[in-house]
């Protein structure tokens, strides 16, 4: 890319976006694990063989982890189709059927989440059908046949395709039909509705009101705005998608205005603690120093969490832009990416982004021709969870043992190499450019009064469709689990949702309607955390859950302070005693006392929050602990068999 200046830059806009046809393959770590790399190869070969002139490009994750690998096809007509679960076979079909014959593939289409009740002007060329009932029998094929049968009668055969969809983003709503390209969606339709739909909406131009499903997807992609859309290894793509416009805007104004925009936006730290981003920047900005630093904390480590990885892999330039904005706001000329070494692809994408930005004059001396100079470097984390803690992270970058230091002094005053340092999480930084570009008012209109904007969650566990979700703050757990992720696996009743990873707690079924905000989750004994969300069904054992998370913290404790080092270990021993049926009620009170000491006397967040999974399960599921204590070893053995899924032994 040619060297950019502030002036040449502003003229670039979304209209420059490459508008031609393309094929994009979700080449994030999840996609690659599911075979995306091979799919990309096959598609490139096939395109060549077919003599087609369209690029086959890598992109990040759209978030639909449950249908990886993902492929998006955009044809001359501008229509974009997302396919999931693509293998070599289906990849070839994409070329032969979709591109050559204009036929969508059965059982692979992932419907877009946009729904409308307006048929628009364009003639419907295909309908997606999918049985979303929870009754176990799949009637999708039957309905496809029914529609095709009806089409034959109505003379639509060959004019409108009936395609079996892989996923509609709608769950438990019976048979769902979506008309393309309008997006008009019908749910819970019965056999007798088919004729009416065909008659009114396909032959005519009327929406069948009583079956229309216009409920919008609760998701709102701010942080993930470019993930799965842009080529993460292309600066042009990012710029075409509006990238670096936020930086340009900030550079034309002042660092103070950048901070005040952040203040007005209400953005809070997405690493989990929710500290106001503007305040963090202001504190660093206020300190006089010859050198300041900004750090991007990419040491994501919660079990089951992959928000930051997806953003780093899918949209590295937005994180870099966010870091630059942070640097500009606080007066830093140097930024560091601290990324865990287990994320090689994220590291590689950031490395490429840095190089590209340097070449384009976005990074380095005189950014975009202004007086602001800024450069960035990468440091790898060696796999210690505690290095996500700010002072430990700093020690790690400095080459020291990664263990936390007492605060104050806070890093904002005395951080990396004793210089004022502002540390922000990946997700926070990725939101910043969007806020700068679109304005604080836009961002603060999303979310709740105290928790503004959106939050990305990695929803995993006993959930039907595990995926990356981005919803406005204030969305309820119920909506996230059931509306977006399709509910609990095998439709077993839900027991609770674990949020906040090892620092969080379990939110029981009765509280699932609570809107997700920093405050509400804390009141319920959990925390927002970085965004891991684990779904548990009624068969899950809460003592095991507590043990799992506590064990994680015991393994990851740096061992510096006594309450965390010994408290965690000893508590785990007591929990083991409970789940083997050998504990007494007194042990339960020891656990509570150790929790209290760890919470209040540990040095850093890891130790202070490590008891949360134990405390929250004790709060909502104490009966399960008591059952082990009262049931003794016999009960414990029986429970173990149940949990292992072995048939219950007949009582003798």
């Amino acid at each position, binding site marked *: 890319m040619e060297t950019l200046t502030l002036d040449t830059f502003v003229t670039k806009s979304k209209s420059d976006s490459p508008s031609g046809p393309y094929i994009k393959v979700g080449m994030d770590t999840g996609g690659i694990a599911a075979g995306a790399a091979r799919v990309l190869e096959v598609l490139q070969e096939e395109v060549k063989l077919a003599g087609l002139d369209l690029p086959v490009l890598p992109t990040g994750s759209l978030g639909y982890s449950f249908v990886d690998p993902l492929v998006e096809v955009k044809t001359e007509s501008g229509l974009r189709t997302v396919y999931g679960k693509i293998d070599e076979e289906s990849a070839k079909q994409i070329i032969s059927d979709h591109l050559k014959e204009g036929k969508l593939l059965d059982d692979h289409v992932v419907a877009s989440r946009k729904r409308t009740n307006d048929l628009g002007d364009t003639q419907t060329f295909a309908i997606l059908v999918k049985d979303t009932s929870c009754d176990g029998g799949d009637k999708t094929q039957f309905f496809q046949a029914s529609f095709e049968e009806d089409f034959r009668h109505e003379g639509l055969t060959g004019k409108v395709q009936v395609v079996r969809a892989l996923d509609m983003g709608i769950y438990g709503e019976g048979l769902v039909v979506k008309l393309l390209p309008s997006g008009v969606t019908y749910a819970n339709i019965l056999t007798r509705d088919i004729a009416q739909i065909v008659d009114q909406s396909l032959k005519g131009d009327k929406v069948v009101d009583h079956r229309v499903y216009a409920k919008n997807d609760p998701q709102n992609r701010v942080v993930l705005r470019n993930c799965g859309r842009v080529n993460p290894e292309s600066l042009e793509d990012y710029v075409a998608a509006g990238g670096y416009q936020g930086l340009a805007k900030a550079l034309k104004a002042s660092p103070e205005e950048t901070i005040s925009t952040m203040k007005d936006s209400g953005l809070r730290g997405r690493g989990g603690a929710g500290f106001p981003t503007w305040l963090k920047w202001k504190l660093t900005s206020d300190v006089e120093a010859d050198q300041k630093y900004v750090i991007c904390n990419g040491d994501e480590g919660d079990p089951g969490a992959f928000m930051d990885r997806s953003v780093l892999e899918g949209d590295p330039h937005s994180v870099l832009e966010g870091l630059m904005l942070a640097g500009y706001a606080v007066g830093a000329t140097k930024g560091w990416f601290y990324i865990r070494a287990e994320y090689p692809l994220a590291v590689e994408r950031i490395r490429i982004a840095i190089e590209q930005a340097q070449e384009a004059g976005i990074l380095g001396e005189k950014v975009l021709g202004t007086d602001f100079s800024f450069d960035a470097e990468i440091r790898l984390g060696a796999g210690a969870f505690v290095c996500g803690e700010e002072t430990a992270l700093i020690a790690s970058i400095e080459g020291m043992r990664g263990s936390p230091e*007492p605060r104050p002094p806070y890093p904002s005053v005395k951080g990396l190499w004793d210089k004022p340092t502002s540390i922000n999480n990946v997700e926070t930084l990725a939101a910043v450019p969007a806020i700068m570009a679109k304005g604080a008012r836009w961002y603060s209109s999303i979310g709740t009064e105290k928790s503004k904007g959106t939050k990305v969650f990695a929803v995993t566990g006993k959930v039907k469709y595990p995926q990356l979700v981005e919803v406005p703050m204030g969305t309820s757990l119920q909506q996230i689990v059931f509306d977006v992720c399709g509910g609990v696996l095998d439709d077993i009743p839900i027991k609770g949702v674990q949020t906040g990873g090892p620092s969080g707690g379990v939110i029981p079924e009765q509280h699932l309607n609570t809107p997700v905000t920093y405050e509400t989750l804390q009141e319920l004994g959990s925390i927002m955390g970085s965004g891991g969300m684990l779904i548990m069904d009624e068969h899950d054992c809460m003592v095991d859950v507590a043990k799992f998370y506590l064990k994680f913290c015991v393994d990851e*404790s740096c*061992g*510096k*302070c006594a309450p965390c080092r*010994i408290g965690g*270990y000893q508590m785990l021993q007591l929990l083991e005693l409970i789940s083997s049926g050998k504990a007494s009620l007194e042990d339960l009170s*020891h656990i509570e006392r150790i929790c209290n000491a760890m919470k209040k*006397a540990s040095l850093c967040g890891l130790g202070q929050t490590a008891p949360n999974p134990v405390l929250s399960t004790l709060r909502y599921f104490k009966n399960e602990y008591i059952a082990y204590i009262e049931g003794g070893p016999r009960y414990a053995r029986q429970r173990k068999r149940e949990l292992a899924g072995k048939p219950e032994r007949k009582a003798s």
Partner: protein
Amino acid sequence: MIQEIINATINGIPIKVPAGTSILQAAQGVQVKIPTLCKHKDLLPTAACGLCIVNIAGSPKKPRACCTPIEEGMEITTHDSDLTDIRRSTLELILSNHPNECLTCGRNGNCELQSLAGDFGLRQDLIPRYVRELPCDDSTGSIILDFRKCIKCGRCVQVCQDVQNVWALSFLERGINNRMAPAGDILLNESPCIRCGQCSAHCPTGAIVESDEVTTVWDALHDENKYCTVQVAPSVRVALGEAFGLPPGTNLTKKIYAALRRLGFKAVFDTNFSADLTIMEEASEFIERFVHGKGEIPLITSCCPAWVDYMEKRFSDFIPNFSTAKSPQQMMGVMTKTYYAEKVNMDPAKIYQVSIMPCTAKKYELERTDEMYASGYKDVDVALTTREFARLIKQSGIDFLNLPDEEADSILGEYSGAGTIFGYTGGVMEAALRTAYFKVTGKNLQQEAIDIQPVRGLEGVKEAEIDVEGTKVRVAVAHAIGNVEKVLNKVRAARDSGEETPYHFIEVMACPGGCIGGGGQPYGIDNEVRMARIRGLEADDRDCKLRFSHENPEIQAAYKDFLGEPLSEKAEALLHTKYVARPSYSK
């Protein structure tokens, strides 16, 4: 600079403290004791133990008093039922990870953890004990690391890395397996350890203790074929009393002589004598180099074995600058087994020499090189630290504090004030300058100039320019061995650029404060204690009728009757040593 004064309250007591004062410090000022097992007055807070948590009105957190500076208007509560309960729980946790071996521990009766457990009235183990089995490291012969007893307070690591700049100790592994150990998980004697023992002096528990050789001394004393002699180092006399409940700095020289005699030593000598002897050699060496240009300038003192070890490992380019004069301990050993043996007509093979030292590195010095056997025998057989000596006395049934005063034995017992000040930082320099001045000018320093004030005190590096009748002698004194690098780098810079050396004479002592702050001294060291001990030795110097090594009549006799003169062939053979470059890591 006007320091900002902060107003706050601790337990309702109004306080005014300078900005930057920690809650822990401020509380001490108003007679409030907040428990801690990791914060040491010498060291920055590590915030490890978690016992010093307090409440601050309006804050949901419980910050640590050790590392939280007081802010304007803070209302601090240091003790309430919740805090006490948390402290008790934390203490129980620490005990659950600590072997229950108090009765056989080197710190029995003198352990910070034991005391706190006693204060909190912990009467039973509520939490099952888990202690990882790890073998002790006794590889140095000076210091024993018992990893199982370590509570991970971090003091030893901090003192080793940040104060001493030795970097022998570090933390390895994490979580419950986190442990203090030589970096790289090697043995301590394979590490850069210089055996200064500051780790043992700062350890709150029995995890790092001196290698105890009291039994060896008992065996020698009970052996009829051995003729036991003893020497006592300058700084021991002003510190030993602390082990018997006396305030630091109390001078017990004459009771120590009496106790040693009662213990069965046939001859009681004083290392202060051999300190005078060291000065005679070292001052002569200085004049040879400085006045006659024979040898490298600056001359660097070599009486601290930890420093010698450090120099050989880290600064071996300064070997030519080192004084070849042995330390007073070794001079006393060789003089006992040659000069004294001759005088009393005793077979030196039968003579057994014990030294009472403030130092753990002195144990290492005994066998440092072949020159430590200059008498034909091991010149000094065993070195006890002050702490071991206190135990020796306590085991012997001697009512130490009520002993009558006695004198040391001739011909190695008389000392001058210059010999006694060897025990603190700057003292060797001062003693040497007193004699060097005399040797150059032919007259003694004026009464009011004898105390060379600029080289005294606890400043890490002290510099001075001494006027020797028109010739300026530039000197530097460094103590706490982490400070030596600055001084030597200056010399290196001048040497490399061909400029004149910034110093002519450099004194280095490895321990903060010098030997009075030695790694083998009674527990509870801080700068207040160091100053009190220094004051004790200063008074001893002032009270001596002789203030100059060269005026010590027993020194004069030793040269006249035995050695000839300083730097004579005989003196060189018996009283001087050599140095070799050694690797920091032997593994």
